[in-house]
């Protein structure tokens, strides 16, 4: 499914809109995990707007592709994408985090249309994604499973237990992304708990590894095309990204892992996103 220039332009525009929506939701919510939501925008936009076989009018379609946002704290980004795709009205997100809202900061699969799996406790998503992928195989279904991990999340042992199982069972109908933004809560991944040599770890666990620029739609599409035709090994796409991408005062600033935005900051943040869009 090679990507055309028109598609790229449309995705760029979509990503920019989603970033602005993330900014709005964060301000409505009184605070959200905005840094890691902004870093994963291109990969999740590529999935929802080019690759995934899904239908927002029919969210339970049996043969739909499954998408697991294992770094569930990025719910503010996930919700923005689902709304943009048409699963629900964006205005509903004014209730994000509020009393009795279906939208807590970690999305609940029983309450939010389009969410396949509830996440938020790190290290749970990849095991469930392996299960979904094996479920397709056992039931002779063609759906694909996609999973998005945080790089800090890869400290969890359960990620590597799932990785071991994915390669042991040759789960090639699963594509795993790591949002390699190089930050977690307490600081830089390499300072808090180093995970390098990261690509080698995945290789040693039996994965095909693609190391790409996670903000570049061409690289994302190429990596996905390759991953989707793999028949020997599962693929991990290490998407090198910038935490807080698009909002200049948040980029690579660990304090923006979680934060709130007043109306001044909302304006500044959106202006920065717009500048990024114009540059591209």
């Amino acid at each position, binding site marked *: 499914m090679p990507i055309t220039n028109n598609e790229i332009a449309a995705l760029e525009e979509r990503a920019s809109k989603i970033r602005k929506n993330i900014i709005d939701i964060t301000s409505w*919510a*009184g*605070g959200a995990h905005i840094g890691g939501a902004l870093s994963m925008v291109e990969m999740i936009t590529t999935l929802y707007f080019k690759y995934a076989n899904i239908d927002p009018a029919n969210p339970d379609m049996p043969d739909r592709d499954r998408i697991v946002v294992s770094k*569930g704290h990025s719910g503010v980004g996930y919700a923005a994408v689902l709304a943009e795709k048409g699963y629900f009205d964006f205005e509903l997100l004014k209730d994000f*985090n*509020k*009393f*009795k*809202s*279906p*939208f*807590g*900061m*970690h*999305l*609940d699969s029983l309450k939010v249309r389009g969410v396949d799996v*509830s*996440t*938020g*406790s*790190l*290290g749970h998503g990849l095991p469930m994604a392996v299960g979904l992928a094996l479920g397709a195989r056992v039931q002779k279904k063609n759906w694909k499973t996609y999973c998005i991990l945080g790089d*800090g*999340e890869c*400290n*969890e*042992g359960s990620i590597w237990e799932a990785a071991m199982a994915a390669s042991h069972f040759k789960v090639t109908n699963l594509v795993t992304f790591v949002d390699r933004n190089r930050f*977690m*809560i*307490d600081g830089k991944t390499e300072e*808090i*708990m180093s995970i390098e040599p990261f690509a080698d770890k995945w290789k040693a666990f039996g994965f095909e590894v693609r190391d790409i620029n996670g903000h570049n739609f061409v690289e994302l599409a190429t990596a996905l095309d390759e991953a989707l035709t793999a028949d020997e090994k599962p693929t991990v796409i290490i998407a090198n990204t910038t935490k807080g991408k698009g909002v200049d005062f948040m980029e690579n600033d660990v304090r923006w892992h979680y934060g709130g935005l007043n109306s001044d900051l909302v304006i500044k943040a959106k202006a920065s996103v717009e500048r990024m869009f114009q540059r591209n």
Partner: protein
Amino acid sequence: MSEGLTWTLYDANTMTQAQIYGEVLCKMGQTRPDIVALTADMAKSTKIGRFGEKFPERFFNVGIAEQNLFGVAAGMAKSGLTPFISTMAVFTSMRACEQVRTDICYQNLDCKIIATHGGVSFGQAGSTHHCTEDLAIMRSFANMTIIVPADGIETANAVRAAFDWPGPIYIRIGRGFEPPFYETEDYGFTIGKAVEVNSGTDITLICCGATVLQAAEAANYLRQNDGLSVRVINLHTIKPIDTKTILQAVMDTRRIITFEEHNIQGGLGSAVADVIAASGKGCAFEKVGIPDCYCEVGYPEDLQSYYKLDTDGIIGKVRQVMDRDFEEDDDWEDEV
């Protein structure tokens, strides 16, 4: 208990529960070289990072890896150190459940756990971050001591007492935005000994954590408006439980309600019920908490109000139980 640290109301008002324990731990670290502190990418959120700033060589952030966190702490305790370990209550009691049970409690190790974001104190985050099961889980581990401090000052007392208390201990606090209840720290905190914060003869409210303040305010209101004499007990230690204080309340008031930010199955209320049932004494009894469900999303104060754990909710519950004629069934001999 002799650090000479005194927390003025001003301190407690400006510092969160977690900040206060961070300070206490730093202070203790100066005289106690065997203290080490550990966390899992929660140095800032839990405030145990304060210890790390002061004693970097005795501080270990293991990354986002809670099972490893408690395993490593157990090893350090075996080597002769006294680990203080802090991460969210939900990941302590559930992700690392077996490490806490088998590595720490089974081996009866001196590990002091400070579990943060307990109850619905991180209500907006949803059920993955609510922790309304931990007291039930921890109660079932032999050797474990469980403390749920009412506020920052009591947290300071508990953390200090934990050092001299043998064996594993689980101190469960909130996210840190809870208003203070105590004004000074010298109200007589002892592990295992409940504190009567309001005397009364009509009914007893047994509480822990953030509900203590709410119950005390409710008692005040009920005295003024309903002429009720409401006893309020801060049962800060859930295990070992203060049987004597509970049974005294049964004898004196014959009506008991428990309030906790926890599932009504297995927590403070169940612990109190066990004591009452075993005594053979009868009384009107009700448990108030999270009614065996995954909680709604919302800010803690909204959820506390929704689940009847705030002052208004407590007042309503007291009136209900006072209205209940628990002797109406003639078939029962309720002589105690």
